[in-house]
């Protein structure tokens, strides 16, 4: 395992750290496959409502490259196909067939693996292929591309993210098998990053080890998916399992859950939103709580009965902040968190060097309030402190706003993904939607690259 050390960044002190205790939730019945989670994937539906599907069977394929497909995570029947505006395919919902017995059998040790016959390789037509993402652009890996490295982050530094090594406990052999399978495509770097967020982001790791230039590609796989790939290549069984962390200021019982990809969150959110005083008051708090699949910094809001995002390994519960704040710009703000030290709360963390010595490390119950209105960029110099790339963040953002492709390339757009700008967006006093701006700029470049 390689290590990198990052200094720039910020660990947001968010309330609701999950306990290190895994609840098995693999018996959840409904699963959703969400094509919009895969960047650049134009779905063509391969199944109809009522069809019987087995785990690993393609549900949708990419119109542009039919080799790429998204498989069903479980064996069962297609319950519904959800479409949004302009008939955009949002979700394919599969209901699990409870009779399938194999589901909960675990591989205990290496001997089990050796006993298995007919080990398969990892090929583009494996149901695990979608787990490999490609940079630049963050699409599913193109089998024609030769990556200059395959990166696996062994530490997720997002707020309240799961401890990757803890999540992989008991799956070490599967993980090793997965790494071996991936090595057929390029050198695999398993990197454990030290330092504050975004140290563990793939973008940070790649930038530190081998930055992407124009025309180069790197692949990345989530560590737990490496184990899933290992399971597939050794047993031929597709079971996309994930230990997710569930927490946040609005979660009642922050802890870990073992689920399959795309699991319906209904059962988990029922527990997390339940008011302990009035158990019968049916999730009455739902309308004021936002459930985010993924981290608070770059995840997507889902409904209480929504599905875990395809690439997500955490779910965060935070209160909606749709309240006014009287003279918010003038009040001392002891309970408000700011990176900038413009509120009194800054006195609780006098200097970065002294921070480890402080007796109390307050956490803050963030909500979804913007804490201000949108303005042009005025202040400079703070983005650089949370952005561990050799890139000028503000200049790149401005180049993306004006759509100057040449300038974007010069400033290193190919190295970044929207999530790399999440902290910039968080600390921005101008309240600009930076991740959206970066995503849109990348989409323009991606479409140009295809045509």
């Amino acid at each position, binding site marked *: 395992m390689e290590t990198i050390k990052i200094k720039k960044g910020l660990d947001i002190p*968010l309330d609701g750290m999950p306990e290190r205790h895994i609840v098995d939730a693999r018996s959840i019945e409904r699963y959703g496959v969400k094509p919009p989670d895969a960047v650049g994937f134009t779905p063509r539906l391969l199944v109809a409502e009522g069809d019987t599907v087995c785990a690993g069977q393609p549900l949708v394929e990419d119109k542009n490259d039919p080799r790429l497909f998204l498989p069903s995570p479980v064996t069962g029947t297609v319950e519904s196909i959800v479409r949004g505006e302009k008939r955009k395919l949002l979700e394919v919902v599969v209901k699990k067939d409870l009779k399938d017995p194999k589901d909960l059998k675990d591989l205990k040790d290496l001997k089990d693996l050796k006993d298995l016959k007919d080990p398969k390789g990892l090929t583009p037509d494996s149901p695990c292929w979608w787990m490999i993402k490609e940079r630049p652009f963050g699409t599913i890996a193109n089998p024609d591309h030769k990556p200059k490295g395959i990166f696996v982050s062994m530490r997720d530094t997002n707020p309240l993210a799961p401890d990757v090594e803890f999540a992989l406990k008991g799956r070490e052999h599967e993980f090793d098998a997965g790494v071996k399978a991936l090595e057929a495509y390029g050198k695999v770097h398993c990197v454990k990053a030290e330092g504050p967020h975004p140290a563990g982001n793939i973008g940070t790791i790649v930038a530190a080890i081998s930055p992407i230039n124009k025309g180069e590609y790197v692949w990345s796989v989530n560590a737990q998916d490496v184990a899933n790939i290992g399971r597939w290549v050794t047993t031929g069984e597709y079971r996309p399992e994930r230990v997710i962390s569930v927490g946040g200021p609005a979660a009642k019982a922050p802890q870990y859950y073992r689920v399959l990809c795309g699991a319906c969150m209904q059962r988990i959110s029922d527990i997390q939103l339940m008011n302990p005083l009035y158990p019968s008051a049916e999730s009455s708090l739902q309308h004021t709580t*936002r459930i*985010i699949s993924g981290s*608070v*910094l*770059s*995840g*997507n*809001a889902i409904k209480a009965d929504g599905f875990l995002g395809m690439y997500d390994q955490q779910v*965060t519960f*935070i209160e*909606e*902040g*749709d*309240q*006014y*704040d*009287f*003279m*918010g*710009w*003038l009040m001392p*703000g002891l309970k408000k*968190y*700011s990176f*900038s*030290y*413009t*509120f009194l709360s*800054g006195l609780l963390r006098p200097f970065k060097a002294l921070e480890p010595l402080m007796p109390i490390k307050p956490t803050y119950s*963030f*909500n*979804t*309030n*913007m*804490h*201000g*209105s*949108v*303005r*042009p*960029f*005025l*202040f*400079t*110099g*703070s983005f*650089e402190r949370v952005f561990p790339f050799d890139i000028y963040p*503000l*200049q790149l953002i401005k180049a993306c706003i004006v759509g100057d492709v040449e300038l974007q390339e010069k400033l290193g757009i190919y190295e970044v993904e*929207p999530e790399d700008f999440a*902290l910039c*967006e*968080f600390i*921005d*006093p101008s*309240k600009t*939607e930076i*991740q*959206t701006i970066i995503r849109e700029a990348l989409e323009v470049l991606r479409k140009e690259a295809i045509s």
Partner: protein
Amino acid sequence: MNMKWLEDWFEKIEPKGKWSWLGSTYEAFHTFAFTPKTVTKSGSHIRDAVDMKRSIIIVVIALMPALLFGMWNIGYQTAMSTGADWHWLYMWWFGFLRMLPLIVVSYAVGLFIEFAFAQYRHHEVNEGYLATGLLIPMIVPVTTPLWQLALAVAFAVIIGKEVFGGSGMNFLNPALVARAFLFFAYPTHMSGDKVWIAADLWGSDAIAGATPMGELAAGTNPSASALDMLIGTIPGSTCETSVIAIALGAILLLMTGIASWRIMLSVFLGGGLMGLLFNAIGYNDYMQLPFYYHFLMGGFAFGAVFMATDPVTAAQTNTGKWIYGLARLQPRLPRGHDAQHPLHELHGTAD
């Protein structure tokens, strides 16, 4: 504090239909009273508590020590010149009454134009002028006629900022544009030794009294000691004489991270280096001045702390900030009888 009634009142008076063109003005007042209840949609679902209003208000608070001291100094200078025996509180009150019209005119004219432009363009009103509008009266001579100030403010806001698209798009510091406008349009009111000390409570009559820079320009050594200049009990622009009061503001700006320490430090480095270079040449009295005198005179400190650090018009990258600050080692040569180098006006501030 339950402000529900005010929330309701604001929601009730929200301009709709034929009044919706007043949206910008409404937004300005509404967000002044309440941080809005807007929530995030995607991307980062949580946001830092800081916003533009908070950042700007920190600048305004940082200006307070210099402003309060400046008010006292206005009275003190008049008392010293007339030989009046005033209580220190009365000196402050005298200065307060001299400053108040300047501040009111600056805010009234500037904010009126800001609101008008925001309304016309259907933009939000940017809070940047809350700082600029206070900076302008703080760097002019106390006897500046109000109509000249009003013109300068209008010029600064329109030409220095709004023609480029408003706050964040300008490349000149509006406060310095105002000062430069005054200097070039009305030089007799802005320099010499008959503008720095108010003769009485009203009007623009002045008592003779030269600033240390003025004395140097006239070829004499400054009569004020370094300590006087450090404390700020010298004639000069209204609120930029006291290095100590400015330092208090600088501490706040640096602690909160609002201003760039790189710029501040490099401006002082640049100024110091130039002073040392002058010492080495030692051609005339000005060049023989101890290098640290440059930090104490001519509003150098004020310029370094509040002007050079203007985030919009300063360099944007960290390396650039060093260069930008060091580049301020412009020679501040007193040329001729009463004029300083025009660049001096634009870079640092003038006395």
